[in-house]
């Protein structure tokens, strides 16, 4: 009911936006059929394969190590008391040499679960529980049971839908990757002939761009004058490119406009200055790659105020060999999400105008592998065919999202990993165009339609 009220209010506020056909900058005729629910969306792919047992089920060690200790180590996102014994997920007590002894202070006074809607039992329905498959499903609303690494998704990504059907600019759409491994740089657009690179989102792996490789090959790049040097360079380059006319044979760019190209270059320069002065925005605790990636994602949000930013976290995948480190990184992932939400509320224009969605790309096995860590706790993989890998959750908060609403449960799974693409399309008012394209999984539905 609250959603209906919101839509009514939003419809009044947006007035003539509804059903008014107009020509997009891309030249496509477009009819926006529903009002936007928010101006911005941030989607967190969380965070390398999460077991439900340690996440929404809050079983801590009880669901994995045969120790009767339960508790919530994701208290920025979920409601629940933290474990009281065998604390190993926090910061290390260096003086007493105790690993993970000090839990990280909460960032959000009100957990996201109370601020928004939680789908605690969602299905990762098809295909193997591989990271790339899961990430592809997250950004494209489809499953890829037979697709290997080093191939772009065959179905369009949400970036392409938004650029083609909603007329978003390239710098409106960002994928901020945890790194360049696992074919992450291929997630910003598909190979679909009707969509593809022309409608791709910008990709950035900041820990590489601004880390050692970028510092060696990008940092302090020459500052050409935009109106003299760049104009000359572009004139000569355009002449050369016009004499190389074979269709499609071009440097694989993303159709950023010259102004956007300048803006991205200046962002890179700006960030290197921040790296040098050690002033990149970072969460209070930032001792793993995920938390640093979140910091750079906030920098992208501040600089570009994009319509859609997708950030993927991956550090909890250490669970393959180190369960203690998995708990620590799960706790840090929650810390990062809390920080991200807090920072969004501090960005003018995005405050109270941004929907955040959090979903693991897949789950993990029910049974451990034989590897034990320093606490003698067993590690967990994410194996093909293991039903526990198909158990994930989805959480969203923002304008028009019902607060403190829980939909579904362990005995009543509601939601699918392929739902995020139609949900984002719904938020931006192009759900019908995306559905009409017919390129998503048959189970994919907007989460608003599952409420």
């Amino acid at each position: 009911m609250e959603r209906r009220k919101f839509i009514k209010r939003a419809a009044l506020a947006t007035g003539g936006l509804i059903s008014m056909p107009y020509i997009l900058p891309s030249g496509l005729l477009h009819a926006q059929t529903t009002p936007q629910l928010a101006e911005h969306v941030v989607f967190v792919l969380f965070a390398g394969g999460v077991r439900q047992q340690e996440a929404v089920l809050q079983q801590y060690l009880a669901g994995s190590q045969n120790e009767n200790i339960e508790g919530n180590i994701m208290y920025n996102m979920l409601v629940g008391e933290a474990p009281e014994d065998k604390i190993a997920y926090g910061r290390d007590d260096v003086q007493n040499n105790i690993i993970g002894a000090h839990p990280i202070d909460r960032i959000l006074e009100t957990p996201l679960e109370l601020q928004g809607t939680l789908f605690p039992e969602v299905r990762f329905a098809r295909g193997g529980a591989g990271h790339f498959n899961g990430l592809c499903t997250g950004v494209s609303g489809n499953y890829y049971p037979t697709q290997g690494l080093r191939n772009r998704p065959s179905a369009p990504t949400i970036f392409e839908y938004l650029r083609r059907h909603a007329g978003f600019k390239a710098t409106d759409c960002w994928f901020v990757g945890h790194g360049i491994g696992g074919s992450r740089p291929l997630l910003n657009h598909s190979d679909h002939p009707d969509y593809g690179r022309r409608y791709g989102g910008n990709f950035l792996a900041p820990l590489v761009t601004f880390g050692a490789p970028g510092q060696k090959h990008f940092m302090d790049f020459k500052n050409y004058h935009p109106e003299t040097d760049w104009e000359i360079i572009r004139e000569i380059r355009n002449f050369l490119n016009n004499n190389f006319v074979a269709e499609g044979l071009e440097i694989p760019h993303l159709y950023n406009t010259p102004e956007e190209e300048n803006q991205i270059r200046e962002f890179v320069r700006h960030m290197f200055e921040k790296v040098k002065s050690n002033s990149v925005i970072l969460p209070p605790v930032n001792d793993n790659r995920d938390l640093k990636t979140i910091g750079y994602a906030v920098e992208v949000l501040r600089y570009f105020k994009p319509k859609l930013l997708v950030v993927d976290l991956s550090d909890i995948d250490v669970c393959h060999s180190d369960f203690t480190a998995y708990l620590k990184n799960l706790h840090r992932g929650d810390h990062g999400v809390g920080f991200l939400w807090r920072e969004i509320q501090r960005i003018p224009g995005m405050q109270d105008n941004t929907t955040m969605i959090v979903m693991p790309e897949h789950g993990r096995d029910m049974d451990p592998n034989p590897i034990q860590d320093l606490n003698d706790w067993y590690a967990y993989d994410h194996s093909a065919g293991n039903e526990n890998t198909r158990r994930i959750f989805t959480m969203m908060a923002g304008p028009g999202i019902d607060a403190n609403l829980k939909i579904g449960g362990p005995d009543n799974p509601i939601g699918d990993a392929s739902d995020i693409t139609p949900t984002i399309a719904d938020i931006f008012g192009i759900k019908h165009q995306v559905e009409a394209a017919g390129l998503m999984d048959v189970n994919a539905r907007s989460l608003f339609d599952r409420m």
Partner: protein
Amino acid sequence: MLTSDKIAILVLMIFSLQIFSSCTVEDNYIYEIKEQTILPVNSEKDKDKSNVQYISILYTNLFRKAMSPNDMLDALRAIESIGDKQIAFDILVSKYMNSDEVVLPTEEEMREDPEKFIRDTYKRFFVRQPTQAELTWMINYINSRPEVNPEHFYFAFATSNEHFHY
């Protein structure tokens, strides 16, 4: 002695022979031009360079020496970390242009003999000679733009679509 009648008959025979011979039907030859598809000189460059190939060739063209394997690996990672490759290549070349080790012709050399400069630049980056149209445009550009310098040309060639293909 030939009589006048005989002479008349001989003349008539020669005349008749000429008439008959001029009426002979000759073979009718039709000359046609075989259709040819004229392609640009760079039309055979239809394959993308890999990032490794592009960086390696770029570095050699700018520094006239090979890149070390470690540098190559880092440059490759840096390029892969930015989605829009035009922007990534622009930044990479901008970075390299800040180095004292880049080997560029001087502006004096360029203006003293623009044709040689253009031919050398085409050969260096595109491994071919410019067409007459390209040469004319480039020379006119140099002569009409006092602010243009060799670095502008090297940058544009290095980050052009043709340089990314082979």
